């Protein structure tokens, strides 16, 4: 059995660790409220951009590289992994890295050449240590990402995407991030950000006017599940060549597209960063909560051992005293 002194020092160190974990937990829970407020503040802007893109999709014939990349034989794809700057967040970064590795392996198997972009110090050091090629990295503020970092990330990735294939451009962009579902559940997701998938465009835009007309008829008769979508399809046929008179785009639909789509990407990326930040904080709080509990259990355990060893030493001392007294008494007799 360990000595009492050793047990005491272990208890003391576990207690101070427990205090640190507890403080970290409280810090994390105060950050969550903040992260949630930031996410809520950014929501109206994201919604506005989303609505604008929806309007563009419904009323114009979108032909922009962001929606449809033309050089399909380009094997390069970009993968952005959102990790955390600091540890103490449980499996947060390691699950992102695991998912990223799986995605990279899957893309490799399909004959693509994934190019890695990493956000967050933990992820950067992981890949640096393994001498992996990382095209670009960002760090700092993973628990409260501002507009600036979202702007820088989306600019770099859009530049890579818009560059022609022979200049090292990429044809797709995937983002691996953690979605915040609630305080207890956060889920790692892989999102194909580029090219943008438009709910409306797609097969209708390719088809002739007739097929569009048919599609409209279909949606008029059946599928009442989504009134909004049906309404949009109804206005679609008029876009055959140009904009419908229902909606004016100034200065011109092309210019509006040129400006709004990059903004859309940026706000989507910002959204991913924000939900990742909230997840990071939540998983840090969970990890710290578990760590505090464990510290308390360990302290209980060690205290019990300390008591047992103290009791054992007292018993031993008593036996020794009684034994020696007995021996003295026997000698006197």
């Amino acid at each position, binding site marked *: 059995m360990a000595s009492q002194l050793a047990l005491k020092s272990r208890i003391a160190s576990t207690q101070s660790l427990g205090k640190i974990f507890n403080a970290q937990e409280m810090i994390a829970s105060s950050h969550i409220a903040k992260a949630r407020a930031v996410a809520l503040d*950014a929501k109206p802007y994201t919604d506005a951009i989303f609505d604008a893109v929806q309007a563009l999709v419904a009323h114009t014939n979108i032909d922009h590289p962001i929606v449809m990349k033309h050089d399909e034989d380009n094997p390069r794809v970009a993968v952005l992994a959102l990790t955390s700057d600091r540890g103490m967040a449980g499996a947060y970064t390691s699950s992102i890295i695991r998912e990223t590795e799986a995605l990279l392996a899957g893309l490799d198997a399909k004959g693509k050449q994934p190019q890695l972009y990493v956000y967050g110090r933990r992820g950067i050091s992981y890949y640096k240590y393994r001498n992996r090629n990382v095209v670009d990295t960002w760090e700092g503020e993973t628990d409260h990402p501002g507009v600036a970092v979202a702007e820088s990330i989306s600019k770099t990735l859009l530049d890579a995407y818009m560059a022609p294939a022979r200049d090292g451009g990429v044809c797709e962009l995937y983002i691996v991030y953690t979605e915040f579902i609630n305080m207890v559940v956060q889920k790692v997701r892989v999102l194909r950000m580029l090219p943008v998938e438009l709910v409306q465009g797609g097969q209708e835009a390719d088809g002739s006017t007739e097929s569009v007309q048919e599609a409209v008829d279909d949606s008029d008769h059946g599928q009442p599940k989504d009134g909004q979508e049906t309404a949009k399809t109804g206005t679609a046929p008029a876009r055959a060549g140009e904009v419908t008179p229902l*909606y004016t785009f*100034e200065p011109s639909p092309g210019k509006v597209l040129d400006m709004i789509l990059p903004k859309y990407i940026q706000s989507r990326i910002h959204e991913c960063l924000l939900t990742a930040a909230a997840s990071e904080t939540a998983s840090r709080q969970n990890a710290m909560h578990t760590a505090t509990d464990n510290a308390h259990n360990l302290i209980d355990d060690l205290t019990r051992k300390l008591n047992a060893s103290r009791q054992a030493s007292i018993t031993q001392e008593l036996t020794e005293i009684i034994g020696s007294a007995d021996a003295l008494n026997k000698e006197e007799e």
Partner: protein
Amino acid sequence: MASGEIMQVNIVAADHPVWSGKAQAVMVPALEGSMGILPNHEPVLSLLEQGTVTLTDDQSQSHSFEVSDGFISFDSNKLTIAVEHGQVKDSAKQ
């Protein structure tokens, strides 16, 4: 314009909502010059340049906002002004 007519206006910046309420008239710095919007305007999506948005709210008070780089979208009597950066310039101006 019938003086009773109003529209819903939302001004949002990338990281926070700036102003929201009802207005009688709004002036925005569109890319091709200043643009005035009254209630029941036709649906429009227009780009903005850096400048000042001025609006008259339903109490006939005027508000000004510094905005940069964004767009407006007007649809079913709802005006959304989405900008990268925006802030109240002189909110209590009579």
